[in-house]
């Protein structure tokens, strides 16, 4: 009988590069930037790393295929390096690999590193790709914002929300993230915006305007994990352990079966329930101190509040407008600026979310430090509402 991951693995150290338009650096250099911070934080030498996981999504634009780019960039000691790719949830997937390896006893110290170099395409927004040989022959001609924008019409229809009210609520989602991002020196976008700016921005994909979309950024993030026992033996205090790591993937129901109404993430509801069970959380609205969710688009964040069972179904618009998820609210969300402002170097994003939760839990988040958080949750999603990969991770102080 599986006993779950709770408290079996500790985060020894984390690092995160500055995100943004890193014209000065390629993926190789970004990996080193994130890794050096993580290694210093962990207090380990490269020779102590016994296995590594590398996450990148778009291999044509980043470092190419395979695990060798990481092995070469960090001059790893000929250890196993596995490259993982699971859409925008790839970073969480790398973390999962490293954590499970430690939990299995296969190694003492493992590295998870995610990176993406997106600003070498020559144009703004996410690069376009070829999703196999069949889908281009029939799949709708869309982009990421248009795919996620689908949520808006279905959510309006289901909950009877007017276009204007929903637009204002998602504008607030972005205003809040910009406010937070302005306090984060590593964030891609560090300027606050007003609700009016969000409402009047150029349309990208109805109803999502420019400020409803996250930044497309270069960056890398890393985690070094071990067992709590080893961490303690290494002299670590305030040990942060993994409470839950869950991944749920679509199996075609949303895209092919009429039981899904298009207004929510089927996978997020499943992954979050499993994560709460694994972490022993009964009332997430009361027990989660803070969270980083996959706010690739403002509408994604809004419906996710319900899919994580923090807001009741149909109530996210009200909670958002009431400031429940603002920095001073009950469950601060995207306290580092989120994908929206910290940025979204795809392969790194899942690890970047954990980085913020880790800093907050250790009281090292600087100007944006929250008061005494105990439990941090990350939600990392890849794909589109009708077909996706959803990761939910929960970390906290050991014993919390």
């Amino acid at each position: 009988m599986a006993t779950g991951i709770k408290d079996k693995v500790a985060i020894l150290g984390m690092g995160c590069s500055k995100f943004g338009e890193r014209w000065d650096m390629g993926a190789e250099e970004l990996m080193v930037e994130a890794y050096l911070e993580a290694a210093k934080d962990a207090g380990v030498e490269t020779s102590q790393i016994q296995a590594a996981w590398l996450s990148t999504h778009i291999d044509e634009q980043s470092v190419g295929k395979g695990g060798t780019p990481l092995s070469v960039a960090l001059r790893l000691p000929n250890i196993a390096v596995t490259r993982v790719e699971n859409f925008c949830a790839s970073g969480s997937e790398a973390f999962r690999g490293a954590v499970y390896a430690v939990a299995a006893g296969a190694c003492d110290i493992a590295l998870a590193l995610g990176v993406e170099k997106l600003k070498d395409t020559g144009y703004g927004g996410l690069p376009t790709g070829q999703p196999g040989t069949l889908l281009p022959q029939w799949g709708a001609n869309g982009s990421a914002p248009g795919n996620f924008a689908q949520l808006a019409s279905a959510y309006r229809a289901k909950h009877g929300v007017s276009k204007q009210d929903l637009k204002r609520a998602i504008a607030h989602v972005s205003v809040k993230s910009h406010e937070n991002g302005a306090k984060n020196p590593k964030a891609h976008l560090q300027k606050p915006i007003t609700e009016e700016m969000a409402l009047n921005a150029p349309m990208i994909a109805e109803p999502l305007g420019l400020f409803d979309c996250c930044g497309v950024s270069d960056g890398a993030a890393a985690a070094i994990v071990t067992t709590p026992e080893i961490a303690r033996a290494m002299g670590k205090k305030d040990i942060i352990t993994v409470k839950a790591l869950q991944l749920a993937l679509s199996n075609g129901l949303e895209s092919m079966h009429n039981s899904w109404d298009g207004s929510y993430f089927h996978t997020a509801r499943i992954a979050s329930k499993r994560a709460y069970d694994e972490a022993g959380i009964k009332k997430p609205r009361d027990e989660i101190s803070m969270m980083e969710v996959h706010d690739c688009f403002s509408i994604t964040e809004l419906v996710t509040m319900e899919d994580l069972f923090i807001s009741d179904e149909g109530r996210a618009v009200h909670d958002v407008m009431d400031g429940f998820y603002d920095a001073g609210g009950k469950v601060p969300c995207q306290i580092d600026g989120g994908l929206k402002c910290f940025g979204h170097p795809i392969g790194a994003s899942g690890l970047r979310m954990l980085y913020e939760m880790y800093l907050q839990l250790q009281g090292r988040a600087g100007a944006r430090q929250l008061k005494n958080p105990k439990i941090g949750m990350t939600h990392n999603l890849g794909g589109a509402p009708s077909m996706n990969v959803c990761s939910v991770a929960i970390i906290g102080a050991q014993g919390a």
Partner: protein
Amino acid sequence: MTQPGVGITAFGAYLPRLRLQRKAMAAANAWANPGIVAQGKGERTMANWDEDAVTMAVEAARDALPAGPDPIKSRHFVDALFFASTTMPFADRQNAGIVASALSLPEEIHSIDISGSQRAGVSALIAAAEKVKAGGAKAALVASGDRRKTRAGAVQEFQYGDGAASFIFGNENVAARFLGSHSLSIDFVDHFRGEGEEFDYGWEERWIRDEGFSKIVPRAVRALLTKTGVSAAAVDHFILPCLFPKLDQQIAKMCDIDPAKVRDNLGATVGECGTSHALVMLAHALEDAKPGQKILVAAFGQGCDTVLFEVTDAIAKAQPKNGVKGWLARRKEETNYMKWLAFNGLLEMEKGMRAEKDNKTALTVTYRKRDMLFGLVGGKCEKCGTAQFPRTRICVNPNCRAVDEQKPFSFAELQGKILSWSADYLTYSQDPPSHYGMVTFEEGGRFLSDITDVDIGTIDTGTKVRMSFRIKDFDDRRGFRRYFWKAVPV
């Protein structure tokens, strides 16, 4: 002498939704050619960027074919297909084969492309009638579509239209009896388009009018009347696509046909739809015609093809779903001449880097999935009854999961409903914003579908749609285009 038992049993048409206003065309071109303002009256049909001769012919055939949710079964009776056009998308790949696949026609049919002149459409009618008459087919489908290309500002750009028509020939429930045909083959080169050329090259109009139309057409018409033993006075509808004003009436007169019997050539509302135009006019005539009336169709083009029909009592039951009149009523005025130029490849538009993606098509996949891609055929689980798209080996119903239980199930003729949608300005589209959404079907099944023939701000959750066979993508590097189905708001 009549030919009892052989003739048109059903017919249909298709006209694209957009109607380019000739006044707008004239305003854009008058700087270079002040005389062009004389052409600035009425409107012409304008194919959407994702329509071509094949897709329009498919729509016209759907208009003609019997209604029914399951085209695989209801169209099984068709055993021959004649596709006529001079603007076929493929020079070597049977275009009729694409039409057949899109219509889910049986593979056991005789299919042919008929092209090469402006009378190809009427040639196809004659070929189909003769084939049925000879016992070579029981139900021969004629489908014709044309989207003729001219240079920007050409007079023909004003005069032409885009459209399609379709007819089924058989020997049961004949609505318009085939009385006979007569053809002349004369290499009179009024215009030509050489191999690899994009545009036609035409000779002097007065010569075409006086030496061409005025001499060749009457000769063919008179011969047809003599051959069929029908008097000129008995002709109730005279159809002759002709761009010279009133020349059709003068030719009728030359043949002793009452000029009042000359059919409206739809020049003010449609324009001349190339080799399909005589067929569009014939469909239009059949929408008006009374039992016992005779319809004479003539088409000029390196000679002349003529054909004579007699309408029967069955005409009332043979009416199309929309017909020319129905499609004429479904219209949207277009006044943006720039858009016209862009849709017709007459202007090099800035497309952005997103348009650089390689649209190379894996033909092995296209073949393997041909019923899905061309016929919009998914699956229906025999065990739980769930319709699904695409067809897969394991049923999508979470309470079923039966393996290898899905039978082919077509979604092409089902009405769908929009569950969610967006209008996307980021992705490259020839007609931004790209509209798409989750389209669901009451019978079960759904997929994220492109939405076409749509205006910004006119759709929402719950909007009803029909499916339409369209161009999905162009592969300009290889001269290929791929097709798939899109949702069109009803």
